[in-house]
């Protein structure tokens, strides 16, 4: 009886792994597909008959690094994204603390206003933003990209962090107050550590939005000095060489890689963060 039960349990486990493995493979297909395109010769990409075992080639790899300042694009992306997330957190954490903890007239309206900025179509503000940055002398700089990415993401970063702060028991702050802590201490030593999964979650989502951002980057960046990976992709879609699919695939993979590595590194916090708000909210 017992061994039969064990066997059934073992079979169930194998079936579970098989299903999960198949699902993982399905989810990874776009990445594998991109890599397979990026690492094959250009001549084997568009063919009348399918090629199941393409030949391996690093042509696109050499091209993107030798013919294009890909390192600079990557650096620009990383700097602009990290900078924007830092700006977001510096502004969003105190804003969220205020919205979640203090009672004042119009608090809910302010919260909704912050969120509503996300509802605006980006094209509406594109032209004013262009003139604003031109006046500030920030066109074609990473600083401008940091600011614009931060502005785009600030509303939902604030909102996500606020929802995590609402989950923190008020007793913790009361205890800290009677222990002798002021508001800044409470925020820094009690609240922020307690909502770290939420901060990480909001940061990763902001990073994903920022690395995908195209419209404003194209508007602000006009030279490789400020081009990011998303705009760099556009470099391979025109010109005398036509659409260079294997280069596009490799650049897309490179753009995907940093966020993927960040997510893998912090996935424990991330999954906790994503579920924490859901369960308690």
């Amino acid at each position, binding site marked *: 009886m017992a061994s039969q039960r064990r066997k059934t349990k073992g079979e169930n486990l194998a079936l579970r792994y098989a299903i999960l493995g198949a699902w993982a493979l399905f989810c990874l297909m776009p990445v594998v597909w991109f890599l397979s395109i990026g690492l094959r010769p250009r001549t084997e990409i568009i063919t009348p008959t399918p090629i199941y075992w393409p030949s391996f080639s690093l042509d696109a790899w050499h091209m993107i690094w030798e013919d294009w300042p890909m390192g600079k694009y990557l650096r620009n992306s990383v700097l602009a994204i990290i900078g924007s997330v830092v700006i977001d957190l510096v502004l969003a954490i105190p804003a969220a603390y205020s919205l979640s903890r203090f009672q004042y007239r119009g608090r809910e309206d302010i919260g909704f206003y912050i969120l509503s900025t996300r509802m605006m179509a980006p094209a509406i503000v594109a032209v004013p933003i262009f003139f604003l940055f031109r006046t500030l002398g920030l066109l074609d700089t990473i600083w401008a990209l940091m600011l614009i990415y931060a502005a785009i993401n600030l509303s939902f970063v604030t909102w996500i962090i606020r929802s995590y702060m609402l989950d923190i*028991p008020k*007793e*913790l702050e*009361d205890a*800290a*107050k009677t*222990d002798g*802590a002021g508001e800044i201490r409470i925020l820094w030593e*009690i609240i922020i550590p307690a909502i770290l999964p939420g901060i990480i979650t909001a940061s990763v989502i902001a990073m994903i939005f920022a690395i995908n951002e195209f419209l404003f980057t194209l508007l602000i960046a006009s030279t490789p000095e400020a081009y990011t990976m998303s705009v760099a992709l556009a470099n391979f879609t025109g010109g005398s060489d036509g659409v260079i699919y294997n280069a596009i695939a490799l650049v897309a993979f490179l753009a995907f890689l940093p966020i993927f590595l960040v997510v893998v590194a912090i996935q424990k916090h991330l999954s906790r963060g994503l579920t924490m708000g859901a369960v308690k909210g």
Partner: protein
Amino acid sequence: MARIELKNIQKSWGAIHGVRDVNLDIADEEFVVFLGPSGCGKTTTMRMISGLEEPSEGEIIMNGEVMNDIDARDRDVAMVFQGYALYPNMTIYENIRFPLRMRGIPKGDQDGMIRRAAELVELSDYLDRKPGALSGGQRQRAALARAIVRQPHVFLMDEPLSNLDAKLRQHMRVQIKHIQRELKITTVYVTHDQIEAMTLADRIVIMEKGAIQQIGTPDEIYNDPANTFVAGFIGAPPMNLIPGQLQGGVFTAPGVQVAGLTQDYAGAVTLGVRPEDCHVTSGSAHLTGSVYGVEPTGDMTFLTLKAGEKLIEVKADRDYRAELNAAENVAFDSARVYLFDTKSGERLR
């Protein structure tokens, strides 16, 4: 150490009155328990003492100094919360150290103070653990250690034992009382558990609907209740309250007659008598009823009698047994029969 005076304290949120006209003088080193049902204003009163809540009116005075405008962090009170409120990201050591850091205690002194506090609550072996790795009782002891570590002027405890099981609660009660006596720190304790109140308090403050109903020692509260609320709130099972009529010193109600009462009053009254002051008798009785329920508990038997429409609780001998609906006579301990004005609920003396 501190003497606390509450003068005409009121707390309201718009039309809602949380606390009404509370006046109380808590002596230095005294252990005062606020007791009452949920929503009676006891926690709000404590939060006003702590500085976490501002009174709408009245004065909170500590050692002669009005504290109304002084922040919680500057009041030198330490609070223990119902949900422990331990900082989850810090070890127990760091938790206990937190108030010392906030108050600028020199680093060299901190370690000794932390270890002494941990020793006092028997938590020395758990200092390097995070709160999540401790049991409920250990967490509560850690919260207690964090409160006592800097020897504040006042301890405030907001239902600190309500999340613990009965056995642990009894153990913690003894520990809290021992620590309070040892440290001689003025303590205000909030609970809705009358056993905690009776066992811990020097004085009990009974509250209902935001107002104080009675202040007194546990004996005074139990033996000399000021009104029907106090009489019915204290005791397990609570005091029997039997509505009836008083005429010429004789109380009558369906199945009940008590003569020789000295109160100079005529009209609707409520007679109060505790279950342990009711005795099953075969002789002359004050109450005659039918057996409604018999509950042996080992050391005694709870007998419930039905007299008219009223159920009367009696603490009978451990060997007492009876058939349902059997007629039974009960005599009251005459010296422990209380009368209350039915309309106002106030005691008639």
